[in-house]
């Protein structure tokens, strides 16, 4: 059983599970957004969690002080995702029946006094927050390791947990992508959301049915990429950033025979059986074509599709192409993940001469 969990939690398999789960989530959100579903799945999740905590290796990594916030984050994300879906499901049913969403009901449109209504809520929330922080601080000491020693690096050396998604991306990308370009595009993309999403519906209330595309895009990036990669990077990456299942000992001896190959080597050496051309651009021609094809080809394909053409109409050219560009760049990550797992592909384009590896 534990063996199975160890194997299945390898991103190679678990990521596919996450994608399937995400699809089911989007499709059956009305069933998921019920109290019954929440309680029963919470029982299962907590049961599994408690069972897993019996294992000394898993226990050790969970209670490591700086990892505790991630456990809190994880449960908070589960709860709040469910909660907003629960509210969305109620509203969607009301909207279908010709009613306003709950937030727009006559009673809720009524104005109430800030004092005491809001002030008390804030006071209670603040007090609860202090209580939680104090209890947390009394029972969990802040970590302090050996004094800084620039000549001896711990293994694994990990960034703070909220950046571990980026560090995990280093498995698939060079630092200029994982650490600079992709985070930069995340920031730009987030800021651009209100300017790209012109759908006037779903402003000021929870809903899913009225803005499925926006929801799908955002939630996939947030849950299936950002949160998921943080969890992998924190709990399942040991020495040398090797994958360790939740019940495995981080024993430094695990050697993963990984011979990753560049696309150019696939093409010239394995495919054509000749040595690689010396001209850099000729050498990398396949990768350049594939990468351009990924962006241009998929954009053209998208333009043809029904969803694409209707989006193009409603958004206009600039918004539409910006959206496609951002989505395709986000998509590069899963694409490279699968290429790695299926073909041991290292780089699509490898130009170490310019430090340009993709």
């Amino acid at each position, binding site marked *: 059983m534990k063996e199975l969990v160890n194997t299945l939690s390898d991103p190679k398999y678990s990521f596919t599970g996450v994608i399937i789960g995400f699809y089911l989530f989007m499709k059956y959100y009305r069933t998921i957004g019920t109290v019954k579903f929440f309680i029963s799945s919470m029982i299962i999740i907590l049961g599994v969690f408690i069972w897993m905590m019996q294992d000394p290796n898993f226990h050790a990594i969970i209670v490591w002080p700086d990892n505790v916030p991630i456990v809190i984050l994880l449960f908070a994300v589960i709860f709040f995702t469910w909660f907003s879906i629960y509210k969305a499901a109620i509203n969607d049913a009301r909207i279908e029946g010709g009613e*306003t969403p709950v937030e727009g009901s006559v009673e*809720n449109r009524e104005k109430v006094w800030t004092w005491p209504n809001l002030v008390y809520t804030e006071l209670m929330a603040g007090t609860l927050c202090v209580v939680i922080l104090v209890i947390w601080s009394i029972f969990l000491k802040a970590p302090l390791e050996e004094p800084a020693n620039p000549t001896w690096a711990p293994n694994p050396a990990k960034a*703070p947990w909220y950046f571990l998604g980026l560090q995990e991306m280093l498995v698939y990308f060079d630092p200029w992508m994982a650490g600079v370009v992709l985070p930069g595009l995340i920031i730009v993309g987030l800021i651009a959301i209100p300017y790209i999403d012109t759908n006037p519906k779903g402003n000021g209330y929870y809903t899913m049915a009225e803005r499925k595309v926006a929801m799908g895009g955002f939630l996939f990036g947030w849950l299936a990429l950002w949160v998921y990669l943080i969890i992998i990077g924190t709990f399942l990456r040991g020495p040398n950033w090797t994958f360790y299942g939740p019940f495995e000992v981080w024993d430094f001896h695990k050697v993963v025979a990984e011979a990753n190959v560049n696309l150019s080597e696939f093409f010239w050496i394995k495919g054509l059986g000749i040595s690689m051309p010396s001209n850099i651009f000729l050498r990398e021609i396949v990768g350049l074509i594939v990468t351009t094809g990924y962006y241009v080809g998929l954009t053209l394909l998208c333009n043809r599709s029904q969803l694409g053409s209707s989006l193009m109409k409603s958004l206009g050219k600039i918004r539409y192409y910006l959206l496609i560009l951002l989505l395709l760049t986000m998509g590069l990550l899963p694409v490279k993940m699968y290429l790695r797992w299926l073909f041991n592909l290292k780089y699509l384009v490898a130009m170490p001469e310019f430090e340009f590896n993709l």
Partner: protein
Amino acid sequence: MAKKQSLAQYVANTQVWKSIFRHGPPNNARNRAAVIAGNVFLHLHPIKLKRSGVQLGYTWCMGGLTFFVFLSLTVTGVLLMFYYRPTAEYAFNDIIALREHVPLGIMRELHRWGAHLMVITVWLHMFRVFMTGSYKPPREFNWGVGVVLLVLTLLLSFTGYLLPWDQLAIWAIAVGSNMAKATPFLGHGGPGANLAQIGDFVMVSDKNDVRYQLLGGRFVGEPALLRFYILHCVFIPLVVGLLIAVHFWRVRKDGGISAPL
């Protein structure tokens, strides 16, 4: 009972009390308006607002909690600063000494776990704002301000991570700041950096690239500690405070908490 009430009445009638609270108890419309309008902190709120916007189930109070945690971090952070010197010689030992010297002995914990908590609440706040579609017009700009606040929150946490000056700290920052050296054109290991060469002269090198500017050196050493300390304790909190002011102002100017049109 009667006596108690009269005591309260007595206090409420003293010159001191009246000089502070310029209105009667907030149990009628006039005074409820006055209590909000007359207090500099409470007047961040409107005097009345839609019931939907007050409900915990709508906002989760997440933005408010983020602000609240930020304030707690400011207070605990100032207390820590009394005992901490940002030099390679003292930093680590000061952190150890903190345990004994700072009142209650959990100040460092409050500050560290508070920092983690703020990252969590700011993420959840953004998540809520997305789920209610509150970034849509007229709130596009405030969403952008929010994204910048989110990035700054992460940077605050990141710069603070170095200050204990232990193995965990310097290597986490080393991992993080190594990414900066791969910045296209601006980092010496980034794509395009070696294009900027004049003869033998390399324009972008490890002695002047973005990582060098960030760390004040080629590795995480004492200059980096000082830089991170100043960024963490002075610069970023000031910018965050300023942007929070803009953020709150805009929440009001954009029509208060979002609600169906």
